[in-house]
């Protein structure tokens, strides 16, 4: 069953793969984003994600439906974690299955690109010296027209 979720607990990779692992679906493509340990020259110790939950859930559902329209017959699970994450932890996971691998790749890619561009989630980096800083988006989409910085600790484009 396709679904989206915003969660605070750790993301279980194998469990999410199993959710889309139906017998008619021979191909599964997943995207997993983890917290990186560096941001430019600074050492990142973790990230704090915040979310506009009602809108994020609605936007993720929209993206899911668009991806399902793009890849008819796909099953997709998309989960984003929020709250405090340490370096190496998984912040986002998409699993998309389909009878054909090209469609599974397309569905997975479309979903992560949509999440990165449209879902109202923000992150603040924690540095080794105890300071924090909001991470600016990396892509120049319409809704990202505000501030803009370079490398940051989240996985980026």
């Amino acid at each position, binding site marked *: 069953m396709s679904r989206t979720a915003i969660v605070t607990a750790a993301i279980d990779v194998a469990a999410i793969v199993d959710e889309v692992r139906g017998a008619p679906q021979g191909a599964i493509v997943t995207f997993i*984003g983890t917290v990186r340990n560096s941001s430019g020259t600074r050492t990142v110790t973790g990230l704090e*994600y*915040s979310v*506009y939950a*009602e*809108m*994020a859930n*609605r*936007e993720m559902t929209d993206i899911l439906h668009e991806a399902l329209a793009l890849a008819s017959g796909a099953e997709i699970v998309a989960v*984003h974690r929020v709250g405090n994450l340490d370096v190496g932890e998984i*912040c*986002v996971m998409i699993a998309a299955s389909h009878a054909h691998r090209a469609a599974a790749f397309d569905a997975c890619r479309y979903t*992560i690109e949509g*999440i*990165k*561009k*449209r*879902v*109202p*989630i*923000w*992150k*603040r980096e924690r540095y080794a010296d105890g300071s924090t800083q*909001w*991470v*600016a*988006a*990396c892509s120049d989409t*319409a*809704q*990202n*027209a*505000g*501030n*803009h910085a370079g490398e*940051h600790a*989240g*996985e*980026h484009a």
Partner: protein
Amino acid sequence: MKVTVRVFASYADAVGSDRVTVNVGEPATVGGVRLAVAALSPNLPPRPLIAVNETYATDDVPIAEGDQVAVIPPVAGG
């Protein structure tokens, strides 16, 4: 018209709150909210992105009583 606006992340730091009330000339529109919100802090961009009822909205969208209005910093999920 008084419009209550939810504020997130770096913008909430800029205005010192996660919720602000702004005065917008009538008929109230998203464009009016943008200008009023931008005026709250020099650390906000001149035209911050607005969502109405959990959907990104353009300047011409009207604001009615009871609408959920939010100002959305550049998203940075993933």
